[in-house]
């Protein structure tokens, strides 16, 4: 279907269904139940799942296929957001010009940054991309461009947002929040059934459609001759040169495509919430993208999306668990023991969610080098009662 083989089509349909049904599937606990804080089916988090999904799908085209580890990918995310907010400020809250410009701007920057950084490979490439991203972060944070021009461009520490006195030439009497030709992003429909309350949010579904489209393009790239050559770059660049392939334009194309994916994600973040700041470009944000990919499974199609989901879930759910909640869980224990258990759990929850993430990450990297996808494959192999496939054949095609 749609030029994909059977396995990819199945995977694609599963992803489509997951995106469409996520507001229900990720809300398994009734609103009043003690577990409702583990529900992830609320719009702000769902949006993050799909938007960061787009970001890592694009990152995976670069890192997963070619093995070039960009450590400055958040710069493109930030650029996309700034471009989108500027479109809101200048034209109107319609997201179409905002998203188009965010993709174009990120793409142009990716051409320049890629052209320079791809002169080196390995760690030097990573450092060059990191340096570019940090320079751009500093420029944005101090609003250097704005100081030169005499009016704010990135608006420094305050961050960029839309003010009432902005020109907004095309605003007219249109909506005053981001919208797609009048269809407002923050609109939603709530379905109360039994103890549950499911929220279907316009912005989430728009971002979800973008993720599905991004995922589809990624599948096609993975299976194309272009994708095959990108994988061979990872494998043996020397051989590739000596059979007549110029690797530089292939690398640059991959870099620009993944930069544009990041720009799209940045534009969508701004479309969900029309403000942005330089911190979106900070190196920790770039590092998070790398961790998402590795946690999920580098070079696999679905892995990075899973990784993005897990990290965003932990960031938003584990960080909200506090000592009071944990006391509630262990209240059946005798007092002393309860306090003891809470004291042990304490460092891993709330602000300590990074510690939990770090431990999970270590376990995955040590025991599951293929990421969560490998976990899935192992479980699948156990259930189908076949002999587990040997690692060599598992690596044949970067399938799911």
């Amino acid at each position: 279907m749609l030029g994909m083989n059977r396995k990819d089509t199945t995977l694609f349909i599963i992803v489509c269904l997951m995106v469409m049904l996520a507001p229900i599937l990720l809300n398994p606990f009734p609103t009043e139940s003690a577990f409702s804080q583990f529900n992830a089916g609320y719009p702000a988090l769902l949006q993050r799942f799909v938007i960061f999904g787009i970001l890592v799908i694009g990152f995976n085209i670069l890192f997963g296929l070619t093995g070039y580890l960009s450590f400055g990918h958040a710069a493109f995310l930030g650029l996309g957001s700034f471009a989108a907010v500027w479109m809101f400020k200048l034209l109107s809250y319609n997201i179409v010009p905002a998203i188009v410009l965010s993709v174009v701007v990120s793409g142009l920057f990716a051409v320049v940054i890629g052209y320079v950084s791809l002169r080196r490979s390995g760690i030097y490439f990573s450092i060059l991309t990191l340096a570019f991203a940090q320079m751009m972060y500093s420029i944005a944070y101090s609003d250097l461009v704005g100081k030169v021009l005499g009016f704010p461009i990135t608006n420094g520490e305050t961050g960029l947002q839309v003010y009432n006195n902005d020109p907004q030439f095309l605003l007219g009497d249109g909506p005053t929040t981001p919208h797609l030709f009048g269809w407002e992003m923050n609109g939603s429909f709530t379905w109360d059934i039994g103890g549950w309350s499911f929220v279907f949010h316009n912005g989430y579904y728009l971002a979800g459609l973008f993720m599905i489209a991004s995922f589809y393009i990624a599948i096609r790239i993975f299976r194309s001759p272009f994708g095959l050559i990108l994988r061979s770059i990872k494998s043996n660049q020397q051989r590739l040169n000596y059979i007549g392939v110029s690797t530089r334009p292939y690398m640059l194309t991959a870099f620009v495509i993944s930069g544009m994916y990041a720009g799209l994600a940045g534009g969508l973040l701004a479309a969900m919430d029309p403000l942005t700041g330089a911190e979106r470009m900070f190196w920790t944000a770039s590092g998070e993208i790398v961790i998402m990919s590795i946690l999920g499974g580098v070079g696999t199609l679905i892995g990075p999306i899973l990784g993005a989901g897990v990290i965003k879930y932990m960031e938003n759910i584990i960080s909200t668990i506090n000592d009071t909640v944990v006391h509630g869980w262990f209240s059946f224990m005798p007092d002393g023991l309860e306090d003891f258990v809470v004291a042990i759990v304490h460092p891993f929850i709330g602000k300590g969610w990074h510690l939990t993430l770090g431990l999970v990450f270590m376990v995955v990297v040590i025991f599951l080098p293929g990421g969560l996808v490998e976990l899935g494959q192992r479980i699948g192999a156990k259930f189908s009662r076949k002999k587990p496939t040997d690692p060599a054949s598992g690596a044949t095609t970067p399938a799911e």
Partner: protein
Amino acid sequence: MGILEIKGVNKRFGGLQALGDVNLSIAENTVHAIIGPNGAGKSTLLNVLVGKLIPDSGSVMFDGHSVLGRQPFEINQMGISRVFQTPEIFADLTVFENVMIPCFAKRDGAFRLHALGSVGHETDIHETAEAILEDVNMLEKRHMIASSLSRGDKRRLEMAMCLVQEPRLLLLDEPTAGMARADTNNTIDLLKEIKAKRDITMAIIEHDMHVVFSLAERITVLAQGTALVEDTPENIKGHPKVREAYLGEAQV
């Protein structure tokens, strides 16, 4: 007029004259061996031919076009393929993918953005790749990951990757280096088969005299950076200058 004409090539590394006025002509459809003791400049010459090194002076013409100053991928696109001392293959990819990539490079040139095509639908490429794997007796191993192949099969695979592009000149850099006798003989047979099946010019750089005298139709002896003598294998065997420079006291 040979397909490859090397004239007056000089290359200096600091105080070392690696190549001094090398002249060499390789005729079309011959197997031409370049031999010489260690440090004779064989590898330097090869690196000049593939675009890795640029000589200080002289000319290297392939089929009437200069190869000097061109990138390796451009030289390949002109019709020169290279087999390395240790097989250079795409170790993480399948045997079939390994052979398909040079097919794409041959058909699409050095770069083509065919990002929305599908490898699975490229029937022409599949047929070409299958034919060459059949040729080197590796068709049944097409789904194996290349890194899991035996050393001999890796060599076969690399040959297949070069041959599938139908190069006009195949450069072989010590194709049997470090091989056991049986593997060496297999490689010789493989090269003989290849030569019998198609019109191809081969330039072999080799240490192993057994390989050289089994395959070569012409031999050039390099010593101390110059082409000492060029002749048929029979004449080379008895040539006094060669014995002196290269073979020393050893018997051939």
